[in-house]
């Protein structure tokens, strides 16, 4: 067993690109689910339209990366409107079904042969973000203790965490404002807010859009970091990971998504690489190396169940603030 390698990988991934992507996705979910109580199970779709908005504008339409980012954001706003208009007046679980269905629709369209010239089919869109890496100030990789990044990874990770900090600050300021108090009141008792003369529908819609646009930056980071947009990356599992991250860290807490994402990815990669190390060194014989990747999903499923049952407030949360229930 090579423990130093296991720890190195776990620490690197714990603050790496995936942790950034899921922290951002969970920040968006936090606004929707944590603060407003909206069951958005299509967060993957927001990341997908952003990534494809960016990729298609650069690779297909030949626009610059900055225009691409704007198009991605516009696509996320449009998606939020499309999802919200039919469902936000209905009971909470309808939004869940519609958002998860919409995410699947988009994934199927993105990977279809019919739209292959635009979206690239199941191969997706690749190598379009060279403009971003041309701005890279890091000339060499960075290695501090167990943490090890290449120059390009370092650049996107730094940009990503700055983005996370900015979005978290934004959430912090929003939730202190009168707007944030209305949002939280809607989560606690919709009818009470309505009787005070507030338009619950409009506030929910704003929360859905803001959460979606925040989450869509996760799609930008994913697309640029991997230099590749794969339709199947944006499957329902991505949304479930984001929920696990959010609930682990603590919903309705500004730092919840960040703590959740770092802890989640550290644990996941640690268990993953410890297991595959144990398998390849012969310490564990009843699992094959191809099956190690499946175990992480057992952990994901179990974590979601156990957290929701025993500690729905997560690491940082306050149980009193999270009395979520169907309305």
């Amino acid at each position: 067993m090579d423990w130093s390698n296991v720890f190195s990988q776990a620490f690197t991934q714990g603050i790496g690109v995936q942790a950034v992507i899921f922290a951002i996705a969970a920040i968006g979910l936090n606004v929707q689910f944590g603060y407003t109580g909206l069951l958005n199970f299509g967060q993957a779709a927001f990341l997908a339209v952003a990534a494809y908005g960016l990729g298609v504008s650069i690779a297909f339409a030949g626009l610059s990366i900055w225009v691409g980012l704007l198009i991605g954001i516009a696509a996320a706003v449009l998606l939020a409107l499309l999802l919200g208009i039919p469902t936000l007046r209905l009971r909470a679980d309808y939004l869940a079904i519609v958002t998860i269905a919409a995410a699947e629709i988009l994934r199927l369209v993105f990977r279809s042969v019919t739209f292959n010239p635009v979206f690239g089919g199941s191969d997706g869109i690749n190598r379009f973000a060279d403009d971003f890496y041309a701005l890279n100030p890091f000339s060499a990789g960075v290695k501090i203790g167990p943490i090890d990044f290449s120059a390009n990874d370092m650049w996107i990770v730094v940009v990503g965490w700055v983005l996370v900090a900015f979005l978290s600050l934004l959430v912090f300021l929003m939730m202190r404002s009168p707007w944030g108090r209305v949002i939280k009141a809607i989560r606690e008792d919709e009818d009470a807010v309505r009787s005070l003369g507030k338009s619950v529908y409009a506030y929910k819609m704003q929360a859905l859009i803001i959460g979606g646009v925040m989450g869509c930056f996760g799609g930008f980071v994913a697309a640029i970091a991997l230099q590749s947009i794969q339709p199947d990356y944006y499957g329902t599992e991505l949304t479930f990971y984001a929920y696990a991250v959010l609930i682990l860290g603590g919903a309705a807490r500004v730092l919840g998504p960040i703590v959740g994402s770092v802890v989640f990815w550290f644990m996941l990669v640690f268990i993953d690489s410890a297991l595959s190390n144990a398998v390849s060194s012969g310490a564990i014989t009843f699992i094959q190396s191809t099956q190690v990747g499946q175990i992480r999903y057992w952990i994901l499923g179990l974590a979601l169940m156990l957290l929701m049952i025993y500690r729905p407030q997560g690491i940082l949360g306050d149980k009193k603030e999270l009395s979520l229930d169907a309305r």
Partner: protein
Amino acid sequence: MRRLLLMISAVALAFMAVLGGTSAAFAAGETIGGVIKSGQEGVAGVTLNVSDEEGFTEDVITDDAGEWVVEVPGAGQYLVTLQTETLPPGVSLTNPDRTSATIVVAKGQSKSVLFPTGEARVSSESTLDRALQLLVDGIVFGLTIALAAVGLSLIFGTTGLTNFSHGELVTFGALMAYFFNNLLGLPFLVAAAGAMLAGGLFGYLQDRFFWRWLRKRGTGLIAMLVVSIGLGILLRYIYLFFFGGTTKQYAEFSGQAGLALGPVDVTPKALIAGGVAIVFLVATVLWLRLTRMGKASRAIADNPALASASGIDVNRVVSIIWMAGAALAALSGIIYSLSNGISWQQGFQLLLLLFAGVTLGGLGTAVGAIVGSIIVGTMIQVSTLFIPSELKNVGALAVLIIILMIRPQGILGRSERVG
């Protein structure tokens, strides 16, 4: 906590015992294979070549059944070429320009490549014939998902749980039937009956030791929804771990010649499966309509506290609903895999269509779920007349969203349940 661990380890152990034998086969070498057919007959003596860029090349000739298989050296990208001059006279490819295909094989995968022969179907068949064919296929498919949707809808009606792990009950039925049929060698019908019983038992145990415990703890409905997502992921990857990632067929009824009924071509197994589905669906509806049990379940759906106060044993009724719903879901999985093969995520792939059917018919009602599912199933198949078949589910899911806009309570639901 103890209970949960107990249940999970029991499920895991059961699967280790059941499917332990199959996991080893999954890691075998990578192959590319296929079958060349003319009509229903296999075509023997056709030469194909499989090659890659690193210099691997192998010729293969189809056997009497028209089947061919090549063991490739490992994962990677391969080019499969069919030598058209070796096709017997009178047999030609549907698409004469497609004589080769590029195939990406992942580690441990068995990929199949198809070269359809004969006249392109679209040109030889009139649109009406094709529509009829799709209509029949669609109704059979709709009946299949209706079986699973009934349970989803009833469980929602009585306990309020939006069960995202219902698809895993569907997969469970198919896997159990595979275990009884292929590994124990029981006749298929016995295996199917056994799998339904096993499915019902699985549903009962799930409710008795897990969901009832959560209800008693006072876990909220939204929390339970997230728990069901977690349970679904866990079960799905336990299935994958023990069953493997390839799609498998039952020992019997895997390839079956179609019967021509007028312009429509149906396999006998699909006809029988459709008939079985109708019998079970009608029986379920009658059971809910005519017995005290059904009345009790409607009373619980209306108001659990009041039902309990008027002497209905709510837990018992919910248990029975869970058992029946899970057994029907298992049957649905068996029927679906009869023509589509058994796969570890077949239930999850159907789940959104189940939701579409249930929502279309009206959440919480049995008849609504059945009607809604049949409409969804038919629509999915018939829509391939107009849209590429890879996008057929997109149409169904889009209709789900549109229905929610116009009539959120569904076509048979009562409006007071919503909002």
